[in-house]
């Protein structure tokens, strides 16, 4: 078989992964922005990024495969799901990197453990009580930290694990009630400071976040929880001079056990919303988009074969995306294991050949300027064998 292990597509990926050299962190660094989008429920990487060039793709995915002529072509081997038209344009424009056969170190199949591990950044579920993104923010370079009230924002009613930890972060989601008068808030602030530090901290964060988002000023065109609304809000926070430089946005509902394809297929809808949300973020950031990177990750991939109910079950290897004006895109990076039965993980899943932490580390080091030594020690412990990717960003 021609297509098997160790083919790298679209780039000299060996150099990308093995290289140690750090891109100099220089001009424009204070404008750098980083957004992590977490797709909860496990996105089907083999449908989001069909590997139609693999001779076994169509047969191994009977019922789920997206054929070459139905996909947005990335190269002769990989394509994008047709719902990802915007991402397709960004790929052509050199703004999108696509990763495949990639996964966190988690090898079981529980959403909750898988998400927990992906967010806590250790090599096991509940291995750490706070999140890798928050820990990374504690080591932001001074130029990025300077004069920021908080370093990160979650566009969610509750703080996701990935952004929990010692670094100052805030959260925000759209409102339907009028804001309380400042006098009440200051009285409660005093009461909380005297009796309940956790509530005090949350309240201070809220007061500031509202100032940034402009209470009542958010459009709710797509419904308050609409992904695009959250992405537009993220853009506002990231555009605020004293606001955060990192945002986390969540999207749920990717657990496609049944009826994945077809007229009401949920995957198609989710991908459309994702695509639209990216456009909303880019539009909101305006000029800052040039200095922005967006990382899109999910807890694991899904089974190669269709299950008994027109969907796919929990798997391992999947896809991830890194995009934005700062990204050296237009490439698919994959150490492709092949879909022949003998090459599958436990005979059922796409075999993970790239550790997601290599990508996360590369983004933290080269885009946000987090010192490599701290990333190894303080952000992703137990990962020294996983080298940070390099060459992900425009010089």
């Amino acid at each position, binding site marked *: 078989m021609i297509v098997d292990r160790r083919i790298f597509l679209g780039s000299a990926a060996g150099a990308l992964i093995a290289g140690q050299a750090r891109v100099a962190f220089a001009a424009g660094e204070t404008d750098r922005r980083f957004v992590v989008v977490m797709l909860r429920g496990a996105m089907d990487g083999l449908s989001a990024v069909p590997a139609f060039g693999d001779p076994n793709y169509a047969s191994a995915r009977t019922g789920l495969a997206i054929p070459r002529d139905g996909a947005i072509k990335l190269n002769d081997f990989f394509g994008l799901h047709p719902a990802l038209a915007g991402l397709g344009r960004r790929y052509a424009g050199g703004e999108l990197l696509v990763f495949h056969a990639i996964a966190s170190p988690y090898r079981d199949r529980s959403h909750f453990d898988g998400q927990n591990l992906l967010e806590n950044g250790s090599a096991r579920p509940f291995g750490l009580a706070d999140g890798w993104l928050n820990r990374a923010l504690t080591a932001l370079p001074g130029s990025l930290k300077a004069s920021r009230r908080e370093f990160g924002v979650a566009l969610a009613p*509750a703080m996701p694990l990935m952004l929990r930890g010692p670094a100052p972060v*805030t959260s925000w989601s759209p409102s339907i009630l009028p804001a309380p008068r400042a006098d009440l808030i200051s009285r409660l602030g005093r*009461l909380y400071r005297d*009796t309940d530090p956790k509530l005090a901290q949350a309240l201070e964060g809220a007061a500031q976040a509202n100032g940034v988002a402009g209470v009542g000023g958010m459009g709710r065109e797509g419904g308050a929880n609409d992904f695009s609304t959250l992405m537009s809000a993220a853009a506002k926070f990231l555009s605020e001079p004293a606001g955060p430089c990192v945002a986390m946005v969540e999207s749920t509902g990717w657990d496609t*056990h049944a009826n994945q394809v077809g007229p009401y297929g949920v995957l198609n809808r989710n991908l459309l*919303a994702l695509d639209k949300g990216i456009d909303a973020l880019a539009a909101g950031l305006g000029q800052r988009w040039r200095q922005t990177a967006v990382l899109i990750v999910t807890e694991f991939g899904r089974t190669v074969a269709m299950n008994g*109910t027109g969907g796919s079950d929990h798997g391992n290897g999947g896809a991830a995306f890194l995009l934005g004006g700062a990204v050296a895109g237009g490439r698919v990076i994959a150490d492709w294991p092949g879909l022949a039965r003998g090459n599958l993980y436990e005979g059922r899943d796409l075999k993970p050949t790239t550790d997601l932490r290599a990508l996360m580390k590369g983004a933290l080091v080269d885009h946000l300027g987090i010192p490599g030594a701290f990333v190894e020690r303080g952000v992703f412990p137990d990962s020294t064998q996983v080298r940070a990717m390099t060459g992900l960003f425009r010089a």
Partner: protein
Amino acid sequence: MGVHVSLVHAAIAANRFGLGARNQDLKAIAGDPRGWLKAQLRPETSLPGPLAALPSTEDATTAFAKWLSSIGVGPSGEGTPRINSITPGAAMGGTGGGNKQGIEQSYVKTFGPGYATAVSARIGVGETSERPFFERLVRFWGNHFTVSAAKASAIVLAPVFERDAIRAHVCGKFADMLRASCRHPAMLLYLDNYISIGPNSYLAKNPGVLPEYLRNLMKGLNENLAREVLELHTMGVRGGYTQADVTSLAKIITGWGYLGANNQANDTPGKFRFLGAAHEPGTHTLLGKAYVQQGEAQGEAALRDLAAHPATAEHLATKLARHFIADNPPPAAVAAIARAYRGSDGDLAATAAAIVDAPEAWAPQPRKFKAPEELLISTIRALGAPKLDGQKLVALLDRMGQRPYWAPAPDGWPDAEDHWISADAIWKRLEWADALSKGLAAANLDPMEIAARVLGPQLSANTQTAIAGAENPAQGLAIFLASPEFQRR
């Protein structure tokens, strides 16, 4: 016991174990707080009116099946589309819907009003209950066996599932609750078991006997329910089972389904049905034990054993202690609760009584941060007003991050303050405390008196000072509602 101590215990019984004290509750409970709690640990003789008025499981199943037929999905409605992206506004018939496709509009129009009624019933029963400890347990176990409207069918089935499969067994045996959950169409639909068939079953070998729309759905094994039974409902993710056990349990419960509309038997839809033709034949080994039974009895035996497994006792005791005592539950209390579970053959009333008997549960300081629905119900109980209609309740709870029957995933709502205390969540709570207090300004409520009656000795000196210094009674009331000791329990 001194008056002070008995009032502290009354406040703990009403606020931590119950759903929040009402105006006269502490006085009534103070004589025997533990006795008041334990007296609630018996099955109820009749359902509260609003719950009895909800549709039957059969009617709810039929309604959903009919709607599916109306949009052209399978004549008996067994091809369930997932509609995960219904926006909050849209689902309630509001104007907020963005991605307005015809199917969503039809869904909202058909099920929005019934959903609002069910939410209203759920909240209303909590507001008025004389057995609030029992009601809290219903919500705890309902969350343990989450069926979420994140999957479309649950918008009609989740409320009746909670009533028929959970509520009925809250003071009975866990094994019966587990069995009822695994046999209810809501769970069978939510976790896909109704379309799972054994690879060597009759249907797998003779797919031609199925109508075409089912042939496309029922093609093989689906391990979703089996996995969650092990991971979430019984042993817990670190309970010691393997992927092989998941697959084995999935095979054991193949054939567990329910009757759809237009079923060939011409029987009432929504009833549990064991479909032998879908069942994987043969003996299956689960946790090292061979299950030689045939058909439905195989699953019955496996679930009974899972309910009795020591890992299940430990898993359930940990969750109960986390809910009633602290986010990081003290091991001694977990052990005592697990012991009560094992010693009573999984009797949930005896298990709940062990929580009441755990000294750790009576620490005077309110520790557990209330989830939004707990906050809402305890607020309304404290103020004796105002009743909100279903749509307003949904919108309110949605903005506070806990839309009823809409947990994000099968593991239900998190039970730890790290999930609920965030900048945005606190702000939404204060917005509501403020709006509610202003709305009640005309009622001339005395915030200090209400705070004292609801919190008893748990009312702190700081909060008293803040209420006393408020610029008007409405602001004082908002301070009481927002105070740490009322936001916690």
